[in-house]
């Protein structure tokens, strides 16, 4: 390990893919640091480059350009050392083949990580209860529910007690209860074991609840790097969401003239405005829309969420893509 207290230093990390339709620049040279003991969320819509970034940092994918120091080891020249020090939970995969059993798979994983049989067995006993998987050792993976399998995936990444863990959409497919439990577990990994965590998510509430810091990704680039609070503060003021019976583009124009809002974005079937003060902005907005002949269907005033942050940063909503 180097003296630095940085778990990750990514420098111009980039990856492009050759496809039949031409080259795809999945990640376009990202720079970021992650400190020891931090929980960092990688947030972005489908295809933003989150998985590609994680796969590069975990040595699974060779970067086209750039490099990174991961857990103190150079990603390119000391990839094996990196592997020794990290845990990785991949994005959800296909249903496992019959004949693979949970306990055996976890022990196989631990042994490949260099643990001996006894240590792996002990670790299995200790880890399963924390992920609500007690008694599942003998279960065939193909016979488990999606959520149970997801928790098994998480266990795979934690068997060898790594100090730096990458989780790619860890809570996708979990029910609210399991989701809350996993959040709890992730927090305790950091709080009680000093584990550094990098996770990707589509869920704003997850990013908001879990992450100390967020890297917002869009189209292969990091468009923002800040705490959830600071990001929300960027969208200072209030957010007004309006839906009308009629032309939204016209509504946007009318609203723009009436309020001079800070941002003014058409998002699906809604118009999203950010203004200094929502309460005083609504009456003139209503009058303006009315006189333009646009019948109002609904209007909402709320404090900005990360979704609004994403919308103002990229002009696109995150939520639209979330289930895509």
């Amino acid at each position: 390990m180097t003296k630095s207290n940085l778990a990750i230093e990514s420098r111009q990390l980039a990856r492009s893919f050759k496809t039949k339709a031409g080259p795809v620049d999945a990640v376009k040279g990202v720079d970021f640091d992650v400190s020891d003991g931090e929980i960092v969320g990688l947030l972005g819509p489908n295809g933003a480059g989150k998985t590609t970034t994680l796969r590069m940092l975990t040595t699974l994918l060779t970067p086209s350009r750039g490099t990174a120091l991961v857990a103190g080891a150079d990603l390119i020249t000391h990839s094996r050392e990196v592997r020794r020090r990290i845990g990785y939970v991949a994005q959800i995969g296909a249903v496992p083949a019959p004949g693979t059993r949970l306990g055996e798979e976890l022990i196989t994983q631990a042994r490949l990580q260099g643990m001996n049989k006894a240590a792996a067995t002990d670790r299995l006993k200790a880890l399963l209860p924390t992920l609500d998987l007690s008694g599942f050792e003998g279960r065939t993976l193909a016979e488990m529910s999606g959520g149970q399998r997801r928790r098994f995936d998480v266990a795979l990444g934690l068997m060898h007690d790594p100090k730096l863990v990458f989780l790619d959409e860890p809570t996708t497919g979990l029910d609210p209860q399991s989701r809350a439990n996993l959040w709890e577990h992730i927090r305790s990994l950091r709080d009680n074991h000093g584990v550094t965590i990098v996770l990707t998510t589509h869920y704003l509430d997850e990013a908001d609840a879990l992450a100390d810091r967020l890297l917002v990704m869009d189209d292969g680039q990091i468009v923002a790097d800040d705490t959830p609070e600071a990001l929300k503060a960027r969208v200072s003021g209030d957010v007004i969401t309006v839906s009308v019976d009629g032309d939204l583009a016209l509504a946007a124009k009318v609203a723009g003239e009436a309020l001079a809002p800070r941002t003014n974005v058409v998002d699906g079937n809604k118009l999203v405005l950010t203004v200094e003060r929502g309460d005083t902005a609504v009456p003139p907005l209503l009058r303006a829309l009315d006189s333009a002949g646009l019948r109002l269907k609904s209007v909402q005033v709320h404090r900005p969420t990360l979704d609004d942050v994403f919308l103002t940063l990229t002009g696109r909503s995150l939520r639209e893509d979330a289930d895509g």
Partner: protein
Amino acid sequence: MTIVTETWVIFIRQMRQLVRNPVWVFFGLTQPILYLALFGPLLKNISGGGLGGSDSYKIFVPGLLLQLAIFGAGFAGFGIIQELREGVVDRQRVTPASRLALIMGRTMSNVVTIGVQAILLTLVAIPFGLRPNWGGAFVSIAVICVLSLGMAAASYTMGLILRDEDSFAPFVQGVTLPLLLLSGVLLPMTLAPTWLRRVSQVNPLSYVVDTVRALFRGDIASVTVAKGSLVTVGVAILLAWWATRRFQRNSA
């Protein structure tokens, strides 16, 4: 953790899965018997190229062994495509385990499987009339295993390169079938017209088939066996070397 332990861990994982698949166990073990029972009887009524009479099994069984090895090892990579989708390959690659162990553990499971099938086939052929030189038969199975090792390793790497069953299956068919037909596996190449025999001489498998047949006959200390064993070991090393290099690069 040494590379041997890592290979062992992967090997055991693969074997467990195989043994737990009753369909595989049934067909994997009955297939050699089917060949003997359903194709063997035809041999009685042909003559030429050394066929006909009780000696024909010394020609036929070595061919079957080769076929078993080529198809068994050739299609080994099928499984890794599913493992790619499940994320098994990635989760193993993200460990510090040696890349060589990841591919060799799998390959060894195929070698052992093919070895067991080969022994079974040879034993079952006895009641049909096979009377081989036993030392030779034993060495033959070792030769079959060495060949399987190279081919299975190459098959796994091809699976990782093609990443899709729909291209992998025709690829393997397309490569193995001409290799088999041009090696005189089914009938000796002495029956072939000259041009076909010439083509078969550039097929490394021809030498392996000749070797296994010579071994079954008992010509153990022959030039054929020496040449064939060299070709087998050479081909196996070449394939395994290419496979592990590509595998390593694909999963740098």
